[in-house]
């Protein structure tokens, strides 16, 4: 790499995001901004019941209504494949998970509030809505099951008729015998029961999909709000609609936030694509916000019992966890892997814990499907670990920072093999711990606690030392664990004749700033002007291939693919330069945007080489193809492992139970930073979501499966005045196995923040004379007040 870090637009420069001018001026082009001549509009009739047999659907009145093009029900779609699952988990006994069909429209049974039952297509959206009200569905409501423990009971209502006990899988990881032995010899055992609350993603942009069919070419096009258009093309084309890739184009233009909820393939996407060919018109659907609440995949929803064994010196001996994970009514695309391979594998955290055992039962309930949401499994693991470590500190009378420090993996122990499959390549956890404690003035907490007490407030401090695993990989390993896709990334570098560069990336940006970050990488490596680099993503007709953006993989995997493709450009450029400069290829070096004969002043600029490649008059045509365009696929050797320490202080109003965040300090190690400002922004966003989960957000169903938190009146999103002014800094241990030395930063805040918050609240209550071991999220005023009343 030609690390030209002195220029502000190169690697390490806090370049302002080039995409923001269009986003902030309302000039982005989102899916709903796309309108195709002659398009019709789809509206979905959704089940108002959590569980109901569908005895019949009378569509006559709707079909006859003004403007109606077509009304489709399961009768029409029964030959379409079900929505597929991208990961197969096996149970302890070796049996594959239960994988009940997820029909695109409910087939005889609706299984959650919001389950689509019929699709109405009309000339206008309004006509479609009017007609949707005329679809008469004869529901026979059935008892619903919402609670996971109840669902597992033998006599429970069955979400799927052929699945007694509603068990999807019963999975395990780790050496149970070794863990049992360690517990038997432990000086102290800490036990904790925890709930990781269900969240509703709430991207600002609701989902939207437009299907278009060209009857001349036979090509289908889907415009959709997706984080990974190639994956949608693969899943929908191969498993749902049987459309080969060369006849299916998927476009995901500007996307207004995803947080995981737009990774998955949804029935509505398949239905508009299919229907467009049926009705010979483009078909557009845009979710309303209330529809989003009941149809976007939810996140988290774990119930866990955890136990930590310590020796007399406070060294961790073993950890065991037993978790129930809610799958909802159907398996969403990556749902099975979230509580398993993205959760159990993270339970070592930053610590040397010799033995760990984790078992997870995944359970079907009459609720919206649950899948990856910012952090996806890692926040759940971190919450368990960082809460039980804090409780162990409280029980043994050791300062929480000190107990953590005693157990940290030391820098000289890397690469470090955990007992839960992962091998961490690098890190310096004590460095982030020290930096965070110093910056947050942890030592001075007591004086601030007294100040708060004088003002009638209970102040608490909480720590969280999180580990994250980004860029899930490598493909052969995840394949052996059940993934039904590879997890590499692709990139093409297209050098134009006059020297500007187009980068076609399989990563997808939906707020992350890739157009800026990736351009910094390429301009830095090629020594060309930042403004001469254009980033293209989100269209399967433009980008050769891609696995998309999730799991904080874009820079570590997508960026690495770009770097590999740039290396190929430079290698070819050297061949061209050698010919022009009449030198041996081995004598050519590439520095500061020029190909030089080493040790001489003879050189050709990057622009000269580009022009020569496309106007090959003086060119080794007998041995080298003209043109300058290279593609690379990068399959990482390992995950990357960002880590950090968060220190949070809260104040609790003892009269009302209201928690306010007094301060929040984050010290993160993300490896090398491409754009520190963007990284900081990603941390801020992650922290906001983590604080949202810890204090405000909660998806609530009643016992009948009705969604009680179905609007912003009841589902509390974090707002600016709920948040403190964050203090953020970084340390650096470069990733050892990717070309940029980068790790990934998108999810860290959402992973590390929740336990820091709850630790601080618990600390505040304990310090205020209310001894409690744990408080489940969100720590709402009512919940905190109730905890104070009973303790």
């Amino acid at each position, binding site marked *: 790499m030609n690390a030209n870090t002195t220029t502000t637009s190169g690697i390490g420069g806090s370049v302002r995001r080039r995409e923001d001018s269009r986003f902030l001026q309302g000039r982005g082009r989102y899916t709903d901004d796309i309108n195709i001549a002659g398009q019709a509009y789809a509206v979905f009739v959704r089940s108002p019941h959590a569980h109901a047999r569908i005895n019949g659907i009378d569509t006559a009145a709707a079909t006859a209504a003004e403007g109606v093009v077509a009304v489709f029900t399961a009768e029409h779609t029964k030959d379409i494949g079900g929505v597929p699952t991208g990961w197969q988990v096996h149970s302890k006994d070796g049996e594959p998970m239960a994988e009940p069909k997820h029909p695109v429209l409910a087939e005889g049974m609706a299984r959650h509030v919001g389950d689509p039952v019929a699709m109405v297509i009309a000339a206008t959206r309004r006509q479609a809505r009017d007609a949707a009200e005329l679809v008469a569905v004869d529901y026979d409501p059935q008892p619903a099951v919402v609670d996971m423990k109840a669902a597992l009971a033998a006599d429970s209502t069955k979400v799927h008729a052929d699945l007694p006990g509603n068990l999807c899988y019963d999975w395990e990881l780790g050496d149970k015998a070794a863990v049992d032995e360690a517990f038997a010899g432990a000086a102290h055992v800490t036990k904790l029961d925890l709930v990781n609350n269900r969240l509703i993603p709430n991207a600002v942009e609701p989902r939207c999909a437009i299907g278009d069919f060209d009857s001349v070419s036979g090509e289908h096009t889907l415009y959709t709000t997706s984080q990974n258009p190639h994956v949608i093309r693969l899943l929908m084309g191969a498993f749902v609609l049987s459309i080969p890739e060369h006849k299916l184009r998927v476009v995901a233009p500007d996307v207004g936030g995803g947080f995981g909820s737009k990774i998955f393939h949804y029935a509505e996407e398949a239905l508009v694509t299919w229907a467009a060919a049926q009705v010979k018109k483009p078909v557009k659907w845009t979710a309303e916000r209330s529809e989003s609440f009941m149809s976007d995949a939810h996140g988290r929803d774990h119930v866990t019992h955890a136990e930590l064994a310590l020796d007399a010196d406070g060294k961790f001996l073993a950890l065991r966890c037993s978790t129930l994970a809610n799958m909802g009514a159907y398996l969403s695309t990556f749902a099975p892997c979230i509580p398993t391979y993205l959760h159990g594998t993270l339970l070592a955290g930053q610590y040397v814990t010799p033995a760990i055992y984790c078992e997870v039962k995944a359970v079907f309930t009459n609720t919206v499907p649950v899948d990856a949401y910012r952090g996806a499994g890692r926040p759940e693991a971190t919450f368990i670990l960082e809460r039980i470590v804090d409780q162990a500190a409280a029980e043994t009378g050791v300062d929480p920072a000190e107990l953590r420090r005693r157990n940290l993996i030391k820098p000289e122990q890397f690469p470090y093999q955990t007992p839960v499959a992962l091998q961490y390549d690098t890190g310096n956890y004590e460095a982030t711990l020290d930096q965070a404690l110093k910056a947050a003035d942890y030592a001075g907490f007591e004086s601030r606690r007294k100040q708060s007490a004088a003002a009638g407030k209970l102040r608490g401090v909480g720590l969280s030392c999180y580990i994250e695993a980004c860029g899930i990989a490598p493909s052969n390993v995840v394949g052996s664990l059940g993934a039904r896709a590879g997890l590499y990334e692709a990139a093409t570098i297209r050098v134009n004749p006059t020297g500007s560069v187009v980068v076609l990336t399989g990563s997808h940006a939906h707020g992350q700033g890739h157009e800026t970050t990736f351009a910094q990488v390429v301009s830095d490596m090629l020594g060309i002007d930042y403004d001469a680099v254009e980033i293209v993503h989100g269209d399967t007709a433009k980008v050769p291939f891609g696995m998309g953006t999730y799991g904080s993989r874009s820079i570590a995997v997508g960026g690495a693919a770009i770097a590999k493709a740039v290396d190929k450009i430079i290698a070819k450029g050297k061949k061209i330069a050698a010919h022009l400069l009449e030198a041996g290829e081995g004598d050519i070096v590439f520095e500061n945007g020029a190909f030089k004969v080493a040790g001489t002043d003879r050189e050709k600029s990057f622009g000269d080489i580009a022009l020569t490649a496309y106007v090959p008059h003086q060119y080794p045509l007998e041995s080298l193809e003209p043109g300058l365009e290279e593609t690379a696929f990068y399959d990482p050797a390992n995950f990357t492992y960002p880590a950090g320490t968060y220190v949070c202080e809260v104040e609790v109003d003892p009269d009302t139970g209201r928690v306010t965040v007094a301060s929040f300090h984050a010290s993160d190690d993300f490896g090398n930073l491409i754009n520190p400002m963007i990284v900081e922004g990603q941390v801020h966003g992650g922290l906001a979501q983590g604080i949202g989960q810890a204090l405000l957000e909660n998806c609530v169903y009643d016992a009948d499966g009705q969604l009680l938190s179905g609007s912003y009146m009841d589902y509390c999103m974090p707002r600016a005045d709920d948040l403190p002014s964050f203090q953020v800094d970084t340390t650096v241990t470069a990733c050892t196995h990717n070309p940029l030395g980068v790790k990934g930063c998108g999810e860290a805040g959402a992973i590390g923040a929740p336990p820091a918050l709850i630790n601080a609240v618990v600390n505040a209550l304990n310090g205020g004379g209310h001894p409690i071991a744990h408080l489940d999220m969100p720590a709402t005023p*009512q919940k905190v007040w109730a905890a104070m009343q009973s303790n």
Partner: protein
Amino acid sequence: MYDFNYHRPASATDAAAARKAAADGVYLAGGMTLLPTLKQRLARNSDVVDLAAAGLAGIGRDGGTITIGAMSTHDSVATSSEVQSAIPALAALAGGIGDPQVRNRGTIGGSIANADPAADYPAAVLGLNATVHTDRRDIKAGDFFTGMFETALDDGELITKVTFPVPAAAAYAKFANLASRYAIVGVMAAKTGDGIRVAVTGAAGNAFRATAMEQALAGDFSAAALDGISVDADYNSDIHASAEYRRHLVGVMAKRAVGEIA
């Protein structure tokens, strides 16, 4: 939203006439509740009578009375120098409703006619002993709120203004729902010409006076006088606050309001 006939009358008289002529008409004030309800197709009215041009906005002081036109926005009340100087608690209450968008559209008349149990204004109307003036009569505050989303207004009756006698002192303390920012509990405490008044919103089906607190404060107007007083009411209970928690918060917010004055 279903189709409806839209009217924009130029006076209260014309508004009442348009409403009366309609099969199933509804007045539109700020629309902060009505418009989402119509958009979600939860209501289907034949006619919407928009009061925006009916001349019902405006704030004035006449001696010991503040008069607020029914179509005055929350923001106009919050920023009115006359309200701020005469009844600062009322200005503060209006300034704490919703968010800037709501405060620039929502109106006092719309709020009290809707009588949302968690709205702020009912605490002010009741706690400050206001009078609600309609196109047909004057309604005392104590007679106005009759239940959850229920008022003394007859069908088609139009609020024209609300008059507030200027109190000797008043304060409003609100514990907001963190999601909606409506009041989980809001308490207006006031020393009025009619005696001490303590009015509670958010806690029950409609705003009510905490008479036990009023009696205690009549003898000793201090937060300490409220110690141990638990106000009986038919408390609401929802996912945000149990009845027990609301009962507790009535005490906390009443003390805070009184503490601000005393």
